[in-house]
């Protein structure tokens, strides 16, 4: 027996083995954590794609709007999803089946992420998420970017509510029928007596609302040139 073997054996005699149960519990906890993390990443990625789809990309093309425009992108969610995604990857590559077949792991991840997104879209989970803080805050932040400072839009008081429509009376006493859909960003409470600004598409006296946001009537209750076709056009200036 050589000297090194002797040293190792004498060192080992002073040690105690860890119980098998510790490793079983640790492995189980890791596997459960991986599954939960995987689900969280899928859901958050769905919400991120949802917000990216509703990002007002056109504002990036406008001069001097770069910094405000950055707030239109859901950076926080992108960073969170990236961080959690990397954590998930590094946790899963400790599982033998997965690190031996990294290609399979990556394909599995991509399939689950895409499937998760489409399931979330179909089931309405993304829209539900959009109404939950902090996703809602980002969603509303994007809405603020789209809302115009000048240009075609209408402001007034809500006088009547019915189903997905409400009536808006502007300062010239004209009544507008505002149609709200699932795509409408509602940044304020829709209630009779409230003063709101509506951005959307005009059809006669009907407006298909893209955004409904609060406004202070004492400033300039009716601004811009009125609703002419699609509001978010080439000449539309935003802040």
């Amino acid at each position, binding site marked *: 027996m050589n000297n090194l073997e002797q040293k190792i054996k004498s*060192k080992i*005699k002073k040690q105690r083995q*860890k119980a*098998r149960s*510790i490793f079983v519990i640790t492995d189980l906890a890791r596997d459960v954590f991986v599954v939960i993390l995987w689900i969280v990443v899928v859901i958050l990625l769905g919400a991120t794609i949802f917000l990216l789809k509703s990002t007002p990309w056109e504002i990036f093309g406008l001069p001097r709007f770069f910094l405000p425009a950055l707030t239109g992108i859901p950076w926080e969610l992108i960073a969170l999803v990236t961080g959690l995604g990397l954590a998930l990857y590094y946790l899963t*590559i400790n599982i*033998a089946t997965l690190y031996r077949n*990294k290609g399979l792991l990556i394909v599995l991840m991509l399939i689950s992420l895409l499937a998760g997104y489409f399931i979330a879209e179909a089931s309405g989970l993304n829209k539900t998420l959009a109404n939950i803080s902090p996703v809602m805050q980002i969603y509303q932040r994007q809405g603020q970017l789209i809302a115009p400072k000048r240009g075609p839009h209408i402001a007034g008081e809500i006088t009547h509510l019915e189903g997905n429509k409400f009536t808006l009376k502007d300062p010239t006493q004209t009544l507008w029928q505002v149609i709200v859909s699932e795509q409408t960003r509602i940044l304020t409470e829709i209630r009779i007596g409230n003063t709101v600004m509506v951005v959307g598409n005009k059809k006669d006296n009907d407006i298909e609302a893209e955004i409904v946001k609060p406004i202070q009537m004492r400033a300039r209750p009716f601004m811009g040139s009125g609703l002419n076709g699609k509001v978010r056009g080439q000449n539309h200036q935003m802040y």
Partner: protein
Amino acid sequence: MPISDEELAILSRRESKYFDQIVKRYTESIRRYIARLIGNWQESEDVTQDVFVKAFINIASFNPKMKFSSWLYRIAHNESVNYIKRNYRYKEVEFSDEVKNKLLDDKTALEKIIDKERIESVRESLVKLKSKDREILELYYFEQKTYLEISDILKMSVNSIGPTINRARAKLKKI
């Protein structure tokens, strides 16, 4: 019929005397492997002791579906990487003459890499490779590990082992 490593590992969970046989079987090869990674024959003794102590403490975590040697080499890899991080934080590992001599003695493995006429220069070049490239060549050629075993030791995809060996060999030829 001799007891397999995997059986010894399972028996070691109950009686530590079986672990002594593991120590006997692997001390030399693990020390050689560590010395090649850290580039220091003297220091490799301490790291080797740490590897076996760690293996003994955590023997219950060994999965018998894996090869025991892969599991043990994985611990040796981790301990060597930790040693290198502690001691060679901002520089590449430099080989002592003692390690170089021990490394250069292993002819059979090197003969597989390149023809005999160039073997001397290859021996010198191998120690100049980056530790990642050197390690995979050492596991494949010196330790005679299969792709699956290398995958378990380095936690790499099995499919990427072949191309990585080829790339490391190409770098070796350039040196």
